[in-house]
């Protein structure tokens, strides 16, 4: 079975800090990483390949040239091959254009049984690309997958996480599955994987390679537009209560009374 894993390179938000002087994001030294949720998708794809005893895992990422690092990292974890979707024309893509572009890539790769991705990306947090890809390709989706119970050639039985627990869903294949943290524990790269990643060729596919319609990609293909970016007013620190434990506990209790009783 061919499994496509869609991954995104994002800034490591654990490193992101606000510069207190300019009140903007400090970007120096902020590393780029694979979107944490996509790591689970990569791991699941590798586990499926191990489970079936056969299969090919292809990692695909749409991004600027540096997104190649993320793809190489995926290869070092054991992914069979990787493709970078990159073109100046994709700049400014919102989730509609992105999911269209990625679906074109999936079409070009062809013959896939599953498309996996993380439930959302840690920079945009929209969770829209997975469903978008499923719609563009007109294949079923299951989102928030926390376990793949059974996997056959034409269908899969999965657990879809809900606020109260989970649903058990049977879906025909091919399908798009977006996965959550609960599904597995991603492996570390292996040395052999790292060496393969260093040497492997990662082709770059452009808008032309994907036969993308110009008006569906980049800024033009994006129905949404950012018109303003601002830093939120910092939440102000309040009072520090002083005194010995009994005193502060009482003071706090009284202060909270209104909020608690309502």
């Amino acid at each position, binding site marked *: 079975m061919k499994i496509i894993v869609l991954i995104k390179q994002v800034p490591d938000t654990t490193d992101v800090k606000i510069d207190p002087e300019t009140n903007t994001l400090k970007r120096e030294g902020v590393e780029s990483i694979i979107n944490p949720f996509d790591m689970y998708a990569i791991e699941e794809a590798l586990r499926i390949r191990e489970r079936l005893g056969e299969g090919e895992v292809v990692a695909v990422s749409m991004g600027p040239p540096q997104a190649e690092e993320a793809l190489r990292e995926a290869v070092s974890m054991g992914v069979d091959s990787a493709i970078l979707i990159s073109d100046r024309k994709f700049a400014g893509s919102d989730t509609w254009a992105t999911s269209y572009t990625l679906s074109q890539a999936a079409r070009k790769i062809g013959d896939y049984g599953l498309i996996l991705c993380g439930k959302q990306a840690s920079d945009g947090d929209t969770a829209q690309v997975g469903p978008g890809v499923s719609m563009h390709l007109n294949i*079923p989706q299951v989102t928030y997958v926390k376990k793949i119970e059974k996997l056959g050639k034409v269908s899969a039985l999965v657990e879809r996480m809900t606020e109260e627990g989970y649903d058990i869903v049977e879906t025909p294949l091919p399908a798009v599955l977006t996965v959550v943290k609960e599904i597995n524990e991603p492996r570390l790269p292996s040395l052999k994987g790292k060496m393969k990643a260093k040497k492997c060729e990662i082709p770059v596919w452009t808008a032309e390679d994907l036969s993308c319609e110009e008006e569906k990609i980049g800024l033009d293909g994006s129905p949404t537009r950012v018109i303003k970016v601002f*830093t939120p007013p*910092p939440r102000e*620190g309040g009072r520090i209560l002083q005194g010995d*434990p009994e005193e502060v506990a009482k003071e706090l209790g009284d202060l909270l009374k209104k909020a608690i009783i309502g």
Partner: protein
Amino acid sequence: MKETDAIIVIDEKCVGCTLCVKACPFGAITMEDKKAVIELAKCTLCGACVEACKFDAIIIQKKEEAKAVDFSLYKDVWVFAEQKKGEVQSVSFELLGKGRELADKLGSKLCAVLLGDGMEKACRSLIERGAEKVYLVDSPHLKAYQDDPYTKVLTSLVAKYKPEIVLSGATTIGRSLISRVAVTLRAGLTADCTGLDIDPEEKLLLQTRPAFGGNIMATIISPNTRPQMATVRHKVMKEAESDPSRKGEIIKEEFGEDALASRSKLIDIVEEMEETVNLAEADIIVSGGRGVASKENFSIIRDLALVLNGAVGASRAAVDADLIPYSHQVGQTGKTVCPKVYIACGISGQIQHLIGMSSADVIVAINKDPEAPIFKVATYGIVGDLFKIVPLLTEHFKKTLAK
């Protein structure tokens, strides 16, 4: 930079003040020979630099705007009312609250869309909360959420009735469903909005949401497509008041087997609610961090939560140290909560945790480290030993709340 690039710096106007460099959230701008240079590979055309430049030296060049579509046919603000097990979820009431505001500003109607099985009575609650019309689709196929039928039905309704704005809760259902509808309709969709407003001039929906884990806010519009779609998280907006005297219209729509068919099959629904108080819904949360140190000690956190009738939360550090299960984790990789009172005990307040709880009304921090970042966002802070203070608080509330 070529003249035909999507974004250009007009060198003659650039004075080298570096305001744009500082404004760029993607580190795409550097100074070369005192002129700003934008690295197109990193630029996402977000426009922050255009805003920041006092000299109008940066412009984003768009291709000719698509011929203005006549959007006058699109009217009304729609709220997708989510139901589970026949009950309308409270997030829908919050959306009706906001929707009313937006509808008023636009001078249009507020409507709700409800899909389910045997939901006619539930329409009443939507009307009481302000929906002037409720589009109801009742069918056994729609009893529980399934991607295909819900997508087809909602898409059809929107295509038929042409609402100007469609709002939905950013729940697992909402996010899965609305993304699909938006793609089919080629409509702009903004997820997890924390703010919604109407631009007075253009009458466009202004959708504000956090990015980069909440470090930056972005305002987004969907100028050239309709409807303008947005999802909003639970507990971000205020619920609409319920007024039993309100009147409204229920419009029933029927759909054939084709539209209601589903490629995937829902085999079972399993509930796994451990705690009696749902963390995401709770108004009061007492949370423990690594400072609580042991599983046994977490009982003092639970005790306080119990007395306050609140839920127990935890930081990732506490969950990773195996002090409490992951279902209690609050933060970037856990749950986002919006309680009235959030009491953080032994939690340092790393950004990943703050992302999950910083919208609480009142934040209380108890930590022995005076430098802990949590004190910067706490309404009330106590630098002290949580093992002494938390039990004292529990005692205090036992007495005062018992009255």
